[in-house]
């Protein structure tokens, strides 16, 4: 799976939780999930658990601490794939 594929899948997973549709339309890897897309912080856990299901990886709480932007999420997933 390429980074681009993971990015597209991540965006698909995040979409139902997004409150700012406009920001979502022009989102890139630098987009902050909580601040730019206005995702509720409690929902970020659900998003990461959806990543686990979709990509068949396991994420620890400490791994998730590094996820602020869409790019961080993509990097975490790529890293888990590589491990």
């Amino acid at each position, binding site marked *: 799976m390429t980074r681009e594929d993971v990015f597209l899948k991540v965006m698909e997973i995040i979409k139902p939780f997004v409150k700012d549709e406009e920001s979502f339309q022009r989102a890139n890897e630098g987009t902050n999930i*909580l*601040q730019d897309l206005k995702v*509720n*912080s*409690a929902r*970020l*856990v659900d998003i*990461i*658990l959806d990543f*686990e299901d979709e990509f068949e990886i*396991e*994420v*620890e*709480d*400490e791994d*998730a*601490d*590094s*996820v*602020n932007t869409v790019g961080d999420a993509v990097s975490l997933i790529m890293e888990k794939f590589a491990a």
Partner: protein
Amino acid sequence: MKQLPFGVRCSLALQREVGRILGILWIIPIAWFMRFVMRYRIKDVKEVRSRYRKLISETETQGPVLICPNHLTMADSAVIAWALGGSWWYLFRYSRMPWNIPEYNNFSFLWFVGLGAWITKCIPVVRGGKREDVSRVVKKIEYLLRNGETALIFAEAGRSRTGKVQVGSHAQAVGRIMTAVPGCRALCVYVRGDLQETWSTVPARRDSFYVDMQIARPESTFSGMRRSRDVAQQVVARIADMEAEYFASRK
């Protein structure tokens, strides 16, 4: 398990000691304010405190206690601490005065309010802030619990907007702390004033509070974040059961 940096441990020790030394200047006045100005009353207060003191005395043998209450008003943590321990008791057992993690933006507007929060064992957190910052706060609480302190975290992710415990809402930090601190017990607390119909900023004057508590030791077959979520959800579910008992007893 990574140790907290030396500087952070020192700053927590300093915060604790300053708060303890100044204890008589804030613990007693806050309790008296609630009792004589707000005219709050705790139902069966002697029994509530005796139960709490027994539970807390088992900390060394049974594991640290994370107090996990329901959340309806911004004064809940003060009311719960007062209800469970009693002001004079805390002066001599300062480690039993729970640490709190209030929302930073609720008191950051005036420097002396922030100072007051620091003295009163608060570790501010920005909800929806950077994950690393939230994680640093969680790690501080884990460290404090491991070192014989008590902490309070609302089990729901914010004040309940319906006035009832929201089973679908939970603070992930509760599960994360419970799974990271060996032997950690959740003290599920259900507190509600007779006049408290729904959520509010503070409880109404002359309110009389019902307090119930139960120890929970949630188990989970999951791992990773899913385990923390499962544990946090079990704690909220227990509080929801306590709420159901409360309303059933009022019928």
